[in-house]
């Protein structure tokens, strides 16, 4: 078809697929909330199902990630750095990976969370999911950033979103510390291997927020250019 070469100059923008990927990651991570609820209720059937959902969505995110990577040939000229796009993508993917790890750990060892830790752990999960959602909100601003040509007002707006993300992440850090203290107190009562793995669950759950925050810092780098 004639004229097709002209439309060819418009490459496929990575923004929408990047947002779609993050959307998938958020729904994957959000599944941790009902999962944790089921774990705390010792409802094995339910939490195995939720874990399967998490794994499935993580896989779907993985496929989106690979598609997006293929879409970014080096001849593409973009308002955002190719490397930044790929790094944000990797970070987003790692968020989903952490969620999968948490669920895998708990299901794999059929773990029980000690009673005194339950409330705090549920809070940590919730806040980690929030961090993830907040990162998604920031990623959703990419359209607007490009629309305004990275205008000052819009950059500030995204900056504010990222500050909120940092705050959420800090809260998860504090929650982790509290949980570890709680676990430390229980160390005499529990089996050493279980203790080890409980520390690991806390760590990995905290990782979700950590990585979500790193999605944000990558976005910040895009703004700085």
């Amino acid at each position, binding site marked *: 078809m004639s004229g097709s070469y*002209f439309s060819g100059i*418009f490459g496929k*923008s990575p923004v929408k697929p990047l947002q779609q990927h993050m959307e998938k990651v958020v729904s994957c991570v959000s599944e941790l909330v009902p999962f944790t609820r089921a774990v705390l209720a010792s409802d094995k059937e339910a939490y195995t199902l939720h874990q399967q959902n998490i794994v499935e969505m993580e896989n779907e995110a993985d496929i989106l990630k690979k598609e997006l990577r293929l879409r970014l040939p080096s001849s593409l000229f973009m*308002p955002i750095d190719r490397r930044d796009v790929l790094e944000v993508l990797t970070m987003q993917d790692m968020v989903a990976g952490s969620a999968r790890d948490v669920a895998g750990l708990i299901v794999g060892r059929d773990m029980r969370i000690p009673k005194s830790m339950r409330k705090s752990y549920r809070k940590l999960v919730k806040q980690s999911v929030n961090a993830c959602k907040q990162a998604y909100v920031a990623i959703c601003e990419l359209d607007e950033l*490009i629309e305004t*040509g990275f*205008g000052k007002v819009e950059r500030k707006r995204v900056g504010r979103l990222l500050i909120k993300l940092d705050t959420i992440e800090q809260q998860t850090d504090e929650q982790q510390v509290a949980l570890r203290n709680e676990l430390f107190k229980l160390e005499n009562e529990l089996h050493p291997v279980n203790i080890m793995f409980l520390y690991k669950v806390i760590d990995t759950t905290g990782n979700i927020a950590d990585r979500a925050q790193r999605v944000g810092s990558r976005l910040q780098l895009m703004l700085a250019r």
Partner: protein
Amino acid sequence: MEFSLWYLGLAAVFGLFMAWGIGANDVANAMATSVGSKALTIKQAILVAAVFEFAGAFLAGGQVTSTIRKGIIDATQVIDDPELLVFGMLAALLAAGVWLLVASRKGWPVSTTHSVVGAIVGFAAVGIGVESVYWSKVVTIAASWVISPLMSGVLAFLIFMSVQKLILGSKDPLANARKYVPFYIFAVGFILALVTMLKGLKHIGLDLSYGESVMVAAASGMITMTIGVLAIKRIKIIPNEDSDFRFANVEKIFGILMIFTACGMAFAHGSNDVANAVGPVAAVVSIVKNGAVVQESALSTWILLLGGIGIVIGLATYGWRVIQTVGRRITELTPSRGFAAELAAASTVVIASATGIPVSTTHTLVGAILGVGMARGIGALNLRVVRNIMLSWLVTLPAGGILAIVFFFLLKAIFYRGAAI
């Protein structure tokens, strides 16, 4: 001349064919930006293209036509044998037409302008003699093919930066869009009218001084601005219509602006590209009519009309489909970007038209789009395609030239009976 009627007939047919080809293919690139950004529906785009291509061709197409007709070849070289020039111009038309047909079938990025100029230079250098080409003029034209995309790129960059500063990047983009967009609309009307007044209108009996031209241009800018303001008032602003994308309402206002730049783009395209079809026809007609090469003869208005009509027919029969196809693929270009690219490209092309320099509208538009991209305005641009488009004229020139040489000797073998005197 023995075959005068033949020559006239062939010129008209080839010229119409060429104009048809321009309307069928070339216009699409100019109009698709507006369709892609949804500023115009396909029907509106065709209407705009038909009216403004025609107006551009008729009102402002004279300068470039005269360059194509007599600016590239020194016709005094064939004063004894004007038929050679007839063969040459016919061959050039046929060569460019055929080459364009082949290239568009294959999806190659070629330009009408480059094909025609290549064809004319080709037949003249080989068929008449190397010294018969005004090489300095050819160099100027070739240089303009580099300069015009560059210039429109810089213009588009600046226009888009101003849009970012004044509107998109401001605290209240919607209010500022209402405030500033009318000025851009004014600029569209003013620039187009001014350039047309200064250069183009003598042949319809309107000869204005510089001062008068500026006044008329300002008036027409005001008129377009008023229409624009009224249109903007009619837009329905839906608060938070699409929370996913907060600039939907602002883009609607730019959509109005883009209707005007689309008109400008069509006008500019008509003013420059009609010459590709009509210039050689005019040369043939003038030789046949006078029986000799007459450098000073005026351009017949009906020839410009012929070109304009050909373009509109091309648009109606085939071009609309191409516009639709291309438009569907370039949705990345939202009105706020599309207008910047179109305004820059249209201004550049119209200035080139007024100076009588044949440039490629598509290349100029590509340059403008790159300019917007440089201002971080477009999601992604495929630089490889851009490079191919820009380099394509290196291929197109010899291709048009060689084809023209072949057709030239073919026509000569059929019609030539020896020198007239």
